[in-house]
């Protein structure tokens, strides 16, 4: 039985990122794996024993601050899980939840969980860009978008090397953070929907083995969507 703990899916619901959970469930189930999804609400106490993936989806900047306050009660449970090699994925603004602090341009500051050696700031401006990124820890080229008002000051190991930043919003060639098996990126897409190789990577990490090839129609469309979007971004970047 594969257990995915999905944190605050209703509160942190942005740009259809919940679809990544649908894809995880389908990819695992289609491969013959039994899947349990534990959907955590802010009033729940997180219980991570037996968890194979802790997945925290992105939310708006406003909902993120509420999520940070609600998750404070679970800090020791999440910290212990991460320090003991637990697999975790945070996408979009959720990355800020694992920072030491989240400061808001209004002057307020909220404590993060402090899993990562970084601080987050909500600025009074929005940035959007499409990306191609690569990582030593992940397969292939990853595509996605960043649409956020959050910036990071980080001493953490970056997750990605930025290969193409269409609107040149990052100004640095790195993005995200990774420590052990905890992966955080500001990319959205939904990330696991638009990147079938990443979907397979996280499924394999959960199962402890590679999944068999998927012959489902949705996966065929997902692969075609990835290929066409990557080709378009590469053309835009001048790489082809």
């Amino acid at each position, binding site marked *: 039985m594969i257990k995915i703990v999905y944190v605050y899916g209703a509160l942190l619901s942005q740009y259809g990122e919940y679809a990544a959970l649908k894809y995880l469930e389908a990819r695992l189930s289609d491969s013959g794996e039994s899947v349990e999804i534990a959907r955590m609400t802010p009033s729940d106490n997180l219980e991570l024993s037996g968890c194979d993936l802790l997945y925290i989806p992105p939310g708006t900047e406003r909902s993120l601050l509420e999520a940070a306050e609600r998750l404070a009660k679970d800090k020791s449970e999440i910290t212990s899980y991460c320090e003991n090699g637990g697999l975790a994925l945070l996408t979009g603004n959720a990355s800020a939840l694992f920072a030491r602090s989240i400061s808001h341009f209004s002057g307020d500051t909220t404590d993060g969980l402090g899993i990562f050696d970084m601080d987050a700031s909500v600025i009074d401006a929005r940035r959007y860009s499409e990306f191609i990124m690569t990582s030593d820890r992940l397969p292939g080229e990853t595509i996605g978008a960043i649409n956020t008002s959050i910036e990071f000051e980080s001493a953490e190991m970056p997750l990605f090397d930025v290969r193409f930043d269409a609107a040149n919003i990052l100004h640095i060639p790195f993005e995200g953070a990774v420590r052990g098996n905890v992966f955080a990126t500001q990319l959205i897409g939904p990330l696991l*929907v638009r990147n079938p190789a990443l979907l397979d990577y996280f499924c394999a990490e959960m199962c402890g083995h590679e999944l068999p090839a998927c012959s489902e129609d*949705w*996966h065929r469309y997902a692969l*075609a969507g990835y290929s*066409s*979007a990557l080709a378009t971004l590469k053309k835009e970047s001048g790489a082809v």
Partner: protein
Amino acid sequence: IKRILIGGLFANDVAARLLFAGVPDNRLIVKPNLDELMAALYEQAVGNIYTLTCFTDAPKFTKRLKGAAV
């Protein structure tokens, strides 16, 4: 609605999502190229045609309509 034609850069992504929503694959016609999409539309559509577009992309569709004064 007998057929759903899907066009544009994210045509395949939309097709995958419609499958998850329970729409049978044999009702989908996926044409990322908009000219090919319009050709399929004029060749296969019968009766009323309902259109959903991203607001910024609507002109890409409307300017390809026959007789469009764009």
